[in-house]
């Protein structure tokens, strides 16, 4: 096991529809949750990375504002963005800063206050995450983009609306046990299948909800990590890849090539394969996204992601537990806040702190965090001693 860069603490705020706080206060809550657990002084933080997607709040250059509120100056800070995967891109960069020897302790804080926009405007802002000259003028949306993949996957492999619904049934089962989740109601198959259609074939419960939230992850070099915790979680592999933004340039509409490339890089670096993963957090912004993740991460063969949920293999007692904290579908998806929350869950799982939803003897965990419609992909593999 590699012991070079560790997660020494991870925290998050509750994910809720409307938080009633400013973004600096939201970030403070997330950082406090992480930092209090290891009793770290802000002056010991060597650098901070602030991650979110722009245009939800009006604050220009939020890094300096958040850094000041957390007490970090004069240490360097900067803002980083790959839309929904901003948080894990921050962790990737933090990993590199430590591995290079430039810094010993790096904090990543990811946030989003989506409630500042009404849902129509939010759909426009997200739609501009597509090619604004050639695609957004047709009214492309985030649910619409994933629906194009869902329809193609159904036509190619016979994936069914029922299999999509089963993903939400599972994730709502775990969301109902996560006190920080935005959506805590347990849903059955019938409720999912009868919900209003958003973008064919995706219905209301196939989609995650906009919400407010922040997360924080504190990374440290091996020597420094020991001073703060006796339960460091070691980063074993970081993989990142990108797919073309414009629909015309994409080779596949039934899987995310970005994820396949990121997963390959992360597995190779960690020296493990999909069969070695004990617990995973995947980016289920839509139910179809979790099915694609099963295949793109190698948990299922191409075209057989639906079978994995039919077999209930991704429940916490199954062969490969996935999103046993409720996923984005039930927790909610505060864009920049999501990646850090996924890392927090894996850290808790590898430390054995998950109570009822604990995966037995979890040693190796994986986080899959995707930005846009499969545009940016981060896959990070973690291990415990």
């Amino acid at each position, binding site marked *: 096991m590699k012991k070079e860069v560790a997660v020494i603490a991870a925290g998050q705020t509750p994910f809720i529809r409307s938080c009633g706080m400013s973004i600096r206060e939201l970030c403070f809550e997330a950082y406090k949750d992480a930092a209090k657990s290891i009793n770290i002084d802000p002056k010991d933080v060597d650098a901070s990375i602030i991650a979110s997607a722009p245009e939800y709040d009006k604050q220009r250059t939020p890094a300096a504002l958040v850094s000041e509120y957390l007490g970090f100056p004069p240490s360097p800070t900067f803002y980083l963005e790959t839309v929904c995967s901003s948080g894990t891109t921050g962790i990737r960069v933090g990993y590199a800063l430590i591995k290079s020897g430039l810094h010993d302790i790096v904090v990543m804080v990811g946030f989003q206050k989506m409630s500042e926009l009404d849902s129509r405007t939010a759909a426009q802002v997200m739609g501009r995450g597509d090619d604004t000259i050639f695609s957004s003028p*047709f*009214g492309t949306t985030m649910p619409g983009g994933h629906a194009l993949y869902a329809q193609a996957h159904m036509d190619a492999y016979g994936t069914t609306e029922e299999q999509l619904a089963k993903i939400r049934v599972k994730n709502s089962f775990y969301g109902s046990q996560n006190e920080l989740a935005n959506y805590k109601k347990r849903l059955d198959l019938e409720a999912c299948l009868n919900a209003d259609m958003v973008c064919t074939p995706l219905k209301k419960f196939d989609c995650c909800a906009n919400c407010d939230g922040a997360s924080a992850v504190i990374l440290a070099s091996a020597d420094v990590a020991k001073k703060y915790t006796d339960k460091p979680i070691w980063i074993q592999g970081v993989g990142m890849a990108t797919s073309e933004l414009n629909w015309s340039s994409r080779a596949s509409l039934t899987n995310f090539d970005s994820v396949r490339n990121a997963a390959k890089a992360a597995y190779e670096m960690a020296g493990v394969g999909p069969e070695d993963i004990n617990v995973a957090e995947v980016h289920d912004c839509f139910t179809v996204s979790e099915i694609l993740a099963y295949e793109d991460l190698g948990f299922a063969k191409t075209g057989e992601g639906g079978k994995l949920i039919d077999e209930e293999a991704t429940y916490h007692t199954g062969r490969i537990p996935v999103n046993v904290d409720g996923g984005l579908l039930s927790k909610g998806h505060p864009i920049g806040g999501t990646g850090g929350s996924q890392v927090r869950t894996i850290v808790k799982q590898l430390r054995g702190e998950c109570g009822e939803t604990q995966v037995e003897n979890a040693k190796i965990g994986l986080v899959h965090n995707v930005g846009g419609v499969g545009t940016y992909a981060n896959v990070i593999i973690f291990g415990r001693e």
Partner: protein
Amino acid sequence: MDFGNFGVVNFTKEAKSVAFVDYLSEGKLMGTECKKCGKKYFPPRMDCAKCFDSEVEWFEIKGPGKLVTYTTVNFGPSGFEEVQPYTLGIVDFPEGVRVLAKISKKIDPTSIKAGMELRPVPQQLSEEKLTYEFEN
């Protein structure tokens, strides 16, 4: 004409590939091909990423092509309140390009299937605005 004339809503007026909009007003959907290396581009671009050449030949996309995937959007972004629901499709054309557009409301939504043949039809949205959609 510029890109301010293109689409239901738009966000950018200027681009070197502005002839795309002029061609569209003449009833033609066009892509570009690099004169030096022959690489075909849709959406059109005036700069070849492969050989850095900026001399292009325009070619017309006539179809028919085959529908790869589609979705009916029931909740659109701001600016689409009056046109929702609308169906978006992605079509592979024999000219060697993949194109996204709205599928015409003239086509019965229940008859839309992957593999069906569609062709691009330039369309005037108003006196100022134009787009293209897929018809069979």
